[in-house]
């Protein structure tokens, strides 16, 4: 329990720090946040309306913050006056595309990284390992933007399968599996390849270490087949660092999504965030950043839980802690 409360406290501090920094950042050089918010053609009526909804907006930042925080935790996720849309509706509209993209990116990343990492570790220093090593190094040096250009140039323009730049839109898989694939494959791949590169490296390194450990030797000495040693004994214990890596990549994933959504679509939360920044739609900026931080934090919490599922020692230690 102490462990959990410690982690929660840590996450809470991170949340406060990030959201406060973002709040301060949205107000830099702004004479009147209320006017910014009203957007477009501003009449006194509109300003009055903003102030009626969010009376704290003309107070000092330190007074604003707790009130905003209270709003946030009570489910008031802001309002976009320029888009006539509540924060909640905005999330309902914009989160699914990004979640799907992120999910598929992670799936693609793992689907590539796990076999590559495991096989590299198994055939260490072999031709495959070396090839994978160079390839992954190259991909690590490729920001999502470059991968997106490469995919556009090498795949999208050469087949007529996928929507071109900015053409991907949100189609739920249950509405049309094929449509979903067409629209999500390329953006997800643009994110997933980079993840695969990083993860295959981490997995290979960790597997190498694991493969040298005594219990692998014991498994071998028991006569367990190499495949079983690899997948049942070695991978399972290396998977921990992989999971950590997945969680740590969530924030990088969001950063990548911002670029990829602008590049290919679909229009998710990253795209909306950039638009909100352009419009200085401060309540939406704050809401999105806060939700994203919660997302990152949640990912880390989930990893913590997964740790315990995968590793009985941790479960044990936490029970004691």
């Amino acid at each position, binding site marked *: 329990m102490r462990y959990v409360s410690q982690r929660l406290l840590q996450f809470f501090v991170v949340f406060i720090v990030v959201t406060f920094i973002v709040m301060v950042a949205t107000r830099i050089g702004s004479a009147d946040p209320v006017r910014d918010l009203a957007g477009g053609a501003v009449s006194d009526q509109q300003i009055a309306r903003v102030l009626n909804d969010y009376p704290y907006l003309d107070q000092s930042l330190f007074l604003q913050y707790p009130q905003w925080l209270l709003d946030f935790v009570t489910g008031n996720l802001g309002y976009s006056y320029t888009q006539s849309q509540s924060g909640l509706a905005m999330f309902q509209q914009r989160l699914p595309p990004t979640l799907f993209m992120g999910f598929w990116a992670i799936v693609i990343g793992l689907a590539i990284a796990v076999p590559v990492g495991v096989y590299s570790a198994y055939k260490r220093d072999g031709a495959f390992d070396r090839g994978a090593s160079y390839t992954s190094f190259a991909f690590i040096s490729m920001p999502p933007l470059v991968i997106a250009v490469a995919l556009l140039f090498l795949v999208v*323009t050469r087949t007529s399968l996928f929507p071109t730049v900015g053409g991907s839109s949100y189609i739920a898989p249950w509405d049309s599996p094929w449509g979903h694939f067409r629209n999500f494959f390329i953006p997800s791949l643009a994110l997933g390849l980079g993840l695969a590169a990083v993860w295959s490296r981490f997995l290979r390194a960790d597997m190498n270490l694991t493969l040298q450990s005594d219990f692998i030797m014991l498994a071998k000495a028991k006569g367990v087949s190499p495949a079983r040693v690899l997948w049942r004994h070695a991978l399972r214990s290396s998977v921990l660092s992989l999971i950590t890596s997945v969680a740590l990549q969530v924030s990088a994933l969001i950063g990548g999504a911002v670029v990829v959504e602008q590049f290919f679509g679909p229009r998710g939360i990253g795209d909306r965030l950039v638009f909100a920044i352009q419009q200085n739609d401060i309540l939406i900026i704050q809401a999105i950043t806060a939700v994203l931080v919660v997302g990152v934090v949640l990912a880390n919490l989930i990893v913590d839980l997964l740790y315990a599922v995968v590793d009985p020692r941790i479960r044990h230690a936490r029970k004691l802690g």
Partner: protein
Amino acid sequence: MTIALDDTLTTSDEPEQPPAAAKKVRSRRQIGFWFGVSWLVLLAVHAFFAEWIPWVRGEQEVPRVAGPDGELIRASGYRFGPGLDFWFGSDALGKDLFARCIYAARLALTVSIVSIGGALIIGGTLGMLAGYFKGWIDRVISVLVDALLAFPAIVIAALVIGRFDSLQASDIEFLGFGFDWLSRRWSVTIIFLFLSIAPVARIVRAQTLSLSEREYVLAARSLGARTPRILVREILPNLVPAMVAVIFTGVAILLAAEGGLAFIGYSVKPPEASWGLMISENRTRIDDAWWATVFPALMLFLTVLAFNLVGDRVAKRFDIRETSL
């Protein structure tokens, strides 16, 4: 690599490699390293001396070249693909993409290097103090690092840069100074510097922490050396390898970040050139003019790769790893 062939064999970290294979690995690493170095030298020379290099046209120059009929024409509308006249082709406005890529390199390199340099000075100092004295700096840095990791830097950068635009346009003064000077170039540099402080501080802190436990530091301390002297004479010189690795790798990360930021419109403004901006401007025309999108992306990729290769080599050479931090 020392190998203790004894009971710890099974946990020894590095593989035993036959000398030939090991040599091959080394030479392969060398190839990468030398590729990185040569690319960077070539690029840096072009970028920083562009005005004096005859084959680099002006950033904003709209050259007129001989058309099919021999008369001088503008190369607008992506008229020229890669070739002798335009190595990387021409863009929509008829500018030379090679020249623009070079000037974009100047921007990317200056912004990244200045930011990392500044971050090293500030973050390095903080990190050294934190590592040596531990205490509150330590805790603040770790919270900041956690917070930064919890959030994509590109978003914070875009947000702040957007606001800096308003600041520049406003009449707001700070300590009697206005913000007229706050161009995008400065905005990007400042926010990159700011975002780099915590990670740099963290690395330096960790290195300092381990260095301050070393015998020679303990010895110096026991001989009555003063703290500043220990920091400057004993610890600082030993931080250099780590800092070199951080510079190269950090620049690589910032280059990538600048690319993304420029792509979403938050690095320099047109008509200044930036790789990300060029990609953003030209990608919808990739069917007709692939060169205008592909070359900037290639430049970005190769430069990031080169910095990573060099940085990684330095890190390996001096055995600097995140895990040891």
